[in-house]
């Protein structure tokens, strides 16, 4: 297995505050990797480093062995796409146009071509629209391409964000809490969608609070606590690890129950 994305000893400090220290992560093609941890553990900071929003204080980020550029636009062009924890669509563009914006980086028309709409422009535009429509169909939004993003239901907005990210033809997709605020059916659908994305050969990194979701989705789970990588392994290993249970999941239910009973009988 070759690593598509590799983070080597990434440290991110904001002045005196060390948000990430010495975090390493490897991602192979077609792999789904989960990133869990309590609030403030540095998960989103890690994403921001990966996507060029922040420049890490130390460490290296490699995409297929090449260093990632330190600029969000060029990172996306290199093949890393993301969604956002709080949905950030272009609210007064239609669903299709949102996806077309994602297509921007793979289109080649410059200002003059855009101005005069020559035959090459028409071909590129038609191809982009076709691709965008395919992606909308893929995430299950095929019929709402003409609806403004702001008017879509919440779950659809989440899926539209994924379609928009996919439109950049990424080799790595970063999903920041893709099921936040979803009901069980929607979460189930999101799982199917992420598997389908993985099946096309795209490597996926998922940040999520819903541990059940992560453990049934990912091939490999990393646990971040206070900016440090605590444990890394398969879902079963992570689930069984006492440090994780202590740091993140809390005490097992039997113990809590026992404590509650003790309190009652006293």
């Amino acid at each position, binding site marked *: 297995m070759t690593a598509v994305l590799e983070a080597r000893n990434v440290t991110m400090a904001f002045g005196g505050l060390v948000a990430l220290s010495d975090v390493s992560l490897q991602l192979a093609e077609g792999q789904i990797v989960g990133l869990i941890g309590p609030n403030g553990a540095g998960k989103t900071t890690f994403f921001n480093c990966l*996507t060029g929003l922040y420049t890490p204080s130390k460490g290296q980020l490699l995409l297929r062995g090449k260093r990632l550029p330190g600029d969000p636009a060029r990172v996306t062009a290199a093949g890393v796409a993301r969604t*956002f924890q709080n949905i950030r669509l*272009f609210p007064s563009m239609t669903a299709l146009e949102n996806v077309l914006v994602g297509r921007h980086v793979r289109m080649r028309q410059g200002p003059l071509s855009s*101005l005069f709409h020559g035959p090459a422009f028409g071909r590129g535009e038609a191809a982009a629209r076709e691709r965008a429509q395919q992606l909308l169909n*893929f995430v299950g939004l095929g019929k*709402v391409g003409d609806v*403004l993003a702001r008017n879509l239901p919440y779950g659809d907005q989440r899926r539209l964000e994924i379609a928009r990210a996919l439109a950049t033809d990424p080799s790595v997709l970063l999903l920041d809490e893709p099921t936040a605020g979803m009901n069980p059916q929607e979460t189930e659908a999101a799982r199917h969608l992420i598997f389908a994305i993985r099946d096309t*050969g795209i490597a996926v990194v998922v940040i999520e609070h819903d541990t059940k979701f992560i453990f049934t989705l990912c091939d490999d789970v990393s646990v971040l606590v206070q900016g440090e990588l605590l444990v890394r392994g398969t879902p079963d290993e992570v689930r069984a690890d006492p440090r994780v249970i202590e740091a993140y999941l809390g005490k097992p239910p039997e113990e809590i129950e026992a404590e509650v009973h003790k309190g009652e009988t006293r």
Partner: protein
Amino acid sequence: MTRLTSYLRPGMALPLRVAGSVLVLVGALLPWATFVLNDGPYPAKSTLQFFDAPFEVGGFRLHMALLGLAALVVTFAPVPGRGRILRGLGWGAVLVSAVNVLFIAYNGGGLGAVTVADMPAFGGLVALLGGLAVLAGAYAGGIEQPVHLPTGLNRFVAWAVLLVSFAGLLMMVAWTLTAGGQGGVANPYAGAQFLSFLGFAGGLLAALHGAGVLPWISRLSEDHRPFSIVVLLGCALALPFTGAGTDYWMTVAANIGVYAATAIGLNVVVGLAGMLDIGYVAFLGIGAFVAANLSGAVAAKVDITLPFPVAAVIAAVVAGMFGSVVGSPTLRVRGDYLAIVTLAFGEIFVRSAQNNIGGLTGGPNAIPGVPQVSMFGTGFSEPITLGGTKLPSGVLYYFLTVLLVALVMGMFANLKNSRIGRAWIAIREDEDVAKAMGISTGRIKILAFTVGATTAGLSGAVFAHKLGTVSYESFKFLESVTLISAVILGGMGSIPGAVLGASLLFVLPEKLREFSDYRLLLFGLALVLIMRFRPQGLVPDRHRRAELAGEDIEGRPLEETVSEQAHLPTAAPVLPGEARA
């Protein structure tokens, strides 16, 4: 409004509507002014004691009579969207009567002028009451859902409909332009007559909108875009053959054209890319000064004479270069702060021009004597004869500006529906995410400034030759503000909106001369009202309309489309196309 309408009962609708229509109609035929005003008889026999010559009623009283008649017909005819139509007609009647009543009362020295003095004259008040009753009747009966007339017609039927509507539009433009006639000493009532006509036209258009006719036509013209463009261009070129075909109106129309083209350029920066540029008129100035200096004017500081097309292109390029310079702070500065930067640039430009820094602007002496554009042996200021019809002087400049506006509109439409245009809109919506989607926001933002400035520079070249004199006074801060108002008033990001906004904002000062001191006050008041009641602008962009009016992009109410619930892929779908290796 909601609290007022809560007093109305559906049962009151019919009596109110009938009574209102009749009152409007009767009011139109009653005397309006109790005596002859100081400046002579107010238009259209308003001082007749009683109605005795029905077929000689003209001017605003004819408009009132038409509104009343239409309201009466609509009240009983089985038309869809009746409440909406009546609401438009009611507003029209209220506006027309209010404008005239206020004007007569003000000029006649009080309420006596519109009630009882030498003789009784209650026409204005009766009509106003009638208008209010029609409005109340419209609300009492309930305002229906928007009407959707069938589209997807046979091509020839659609073409015929479009031809008729665009011809109507042409007549409307000609009437609006000439309404009230030329202001000034010759006609002291020009301003009031014009405002009254605007009220009438607005009421009529609102009624047509309520009947679903305007949205229908706009859908048809979108479905038959090339045909519509050709016909619209033809209509614009036909304006000199209507009542507006005089020296004066052609000059006014050509001026409007220059500002309309400039406003479309500003629309790229403000409407699409969402960057507030309040020093934009400087680019018009740069274009004008460059063209003036290259034209061989006596006062020009550069001793070369270039033909107009060459000078225009150079003016556009130079303005565009300044545009990219002014745009470069956008790499670091956003929002309000950018507005201040552009304001500063505008001021720097106008002060430098005023003080003749660089020696290219002539300072307070301006650059006079810019020669007229001359092509194929014809000077553009000369009157011409076309197919046996003698056209007034200035008509060639009018044609030139029509071509300019058409060119700029085409450019804008192409850009908007392209990769670059979407990138601009994405930046307007959320700049950080736009960057995360791979858009090099810095370059794209500077490009917006460059395109806007180039457009203004091109317009500036026409401006210089048409006016003959280029002075810094034409490029002051107020002009920038007016241009921004034009863009926002018409509808941000909308092409016809920018043209309509520019037309209104540059016609109004011309028409309202007699209100001199109150002109800007009225102007500001109108803007406040429009922003309050129609934030999406007069001719909103499809997206913005959907956003602010709760409709989807096709103009249907929202519930119809969005309710389609999350039906999810049960089997894992296959992503089409190659995943990138």
